[in-house]
């Protein structure tokens, strides 16, 4: 059940240029959060920016009640958010989304992420590792300057592959190409993905062609985050006759079975 928390910012870190990691005290949200859930942040108590900003959860520390989220400064809202100082309170609603990563019964999974889409995959990998699931992670970045969280993802995986589009760091190419290369050999029982639309479409196609379970975390412009405004619509391929054919990222998602959605 989502709660509104005025969470104290206890640690602020710029992990690469323009990308911030915030650690906040939000026990009420943390205790019910699952990998894949997101939060909505009101960055200012003024009427502009008017809407909350949906941001994925990076890490949950259930013992200490700490929540970590990472965001890239992109526009007005994230700029204001990035200017918050340690000790300040941040207005957060969460956890949000009924569609979370399902992994408990898996044995051998592949996680693929690209750019700023990698953040919600960390808590998934961490929890899967704890259950002794084999976790292979494929992360793609534009170039060396954009590579982040390599050490952190290294700790929660059995194999971590880093790819850059231009080859300026680690392997050259798209993460999906390396996942595809390993598919037949590694026999993953599920693929989990979050990243740019082009990557998600490629992962979706690959998983359908190879008949592998696949869960993807989607993004769409959002207002309420609660399933009320029906703004963040995503077309479902499972549309029952006579019923609306749109699901909503904030409610049915943000994580969907790849074969169930058209985007």
């Amino acid at each position, binding site marked *: *059940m*989502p709660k*509104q928390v005025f969470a104290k910012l206890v640690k602020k870190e710029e992990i690469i240029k323009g990308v911030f990691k915030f650690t906040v005290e939000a026990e009420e949200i943390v205790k019910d959060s699952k990998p894949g859930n997101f939060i909505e942040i*009101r960055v200012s108590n003024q*009427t*502009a*920016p*008017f*809407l*909350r900003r949906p941001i994925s959860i990076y890490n949950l520390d259930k013992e200490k009640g700490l929540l970590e989220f990472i965001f890239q400064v992109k526009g007005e809202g994230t700029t204001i958010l990035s200017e918050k100082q340690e000790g300040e309170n941040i*207005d957060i*609603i969460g956890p949000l989304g009924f569609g979370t990563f399902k992994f408990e019964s898996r044995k051998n999974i592949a996680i693929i992420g690209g750019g700023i889409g990698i953040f919600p995959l960390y808590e998934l990998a961490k929890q899967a590792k704890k259950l002794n699931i084999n976790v292979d992670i494929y992360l793609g970045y534009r170039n060396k300057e954009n590579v982040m969280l390599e050490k952190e993802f290294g700790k929660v995986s059995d194999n971590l592959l880093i790819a850059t589009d231009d080859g300026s760091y680690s392997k050259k190419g798209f993460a999906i190409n390396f996942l595809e290369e390993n598919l037949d050999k590694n026999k993953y029982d599920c693929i989990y993905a979050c990243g740019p639309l082009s990557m998600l479409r490629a992962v979706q196609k690959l998983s359908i062609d190879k008949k592998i379970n696949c869960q993807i975390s989607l993004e*769409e*412009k*959002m*207002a*309420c*985050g*609660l*399933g*009320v*405004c*029906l*703004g*963040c*619509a*995503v*077309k479902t391929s499972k549309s029952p006759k*006579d*019923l*609306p*054919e*749109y699901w909503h990222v904030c409610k049915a998602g943000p994580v969907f079975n790849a074969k169930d959605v058209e985007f």
Partner: protein
Amino acid sequence: MNTQVNLAGIKMKNPVTVASGTFGYGREFSQFFDLSKLGGIITKGTSLKPKSGNKPSRVCETASGMLNSIGLQNPGVEYFAENDLPFLRKFDTAVIVNACGSSVEEYVELCKILNTLDIDGVELNLSCPNVKAGCMAFGNTYEGVKLVTSAVRKVLDKPLIVKLTPNVTDIASIAKAVEDAGADGVSLINTLLGMKIDIDKKKPVLANNTGGLSGPAIKPVAVRMVYQVSKAVNIPILGMGGIINGDDAIEFMLAGATAISIGAGNFMDPFTSINTVKGIENYLEKYKIKDVNDIIGKVEMN
């Protein structure tokens, strides 16, 4: 202190309701507070048959507001009656169904069904700007409003409120059509038609190109229109458009609204509606006003 109001025959414990399309059918917000604290709930726009709504992207932020083009996605009146109404009825609050249709016949069929349900009233949606047929296509002329309202009036015994679009030249004359057709009240304003362009893609941000503007940005337009309508008709007004706190609500009531709705403000903060209830009480206390009804229409023009 009395905060009870009577909106078009609907008795409410306070003047605060939540606007159609910003509160679903109540379930999501019931996770945050007791819905019985609200004067009333106006449901999501509901049609005779389920509606899919428009293609995404459906929403975007604007200066102190937002644009939406949802396209009335809803599960249909049958589903509502079976699944959502019993839930809403658990709370001590007025339940008003926002009814939408694409033809006069559809509005009439829908209202025949609504007339048999355990609801407190109907808000007739003649103002959604985001669908091709019906709604605003009727709502932007005197004749269209009178036609649909009169037809529905014949089959609906429950309180009938008609929701008006601000996208007209003379909203007072449209409100007069509502009154002439025998409705019990008017609600205004629905969203203002707007557009936002992505300058990198050189395309509108919304898939439907245009959408309805709501939020604090539209409040002065809404207050002006509520005032104009209050001078033109004798039926009560449900006022809305950018209200986010008690002070805003008082403005609408001074302009002539008997009750108000919180719309996009629900997205900014899930507690906006009940904070508005408190805000109204604070104002009454500050000016030692015993009855909230005493401020309705009490603006003194310069």
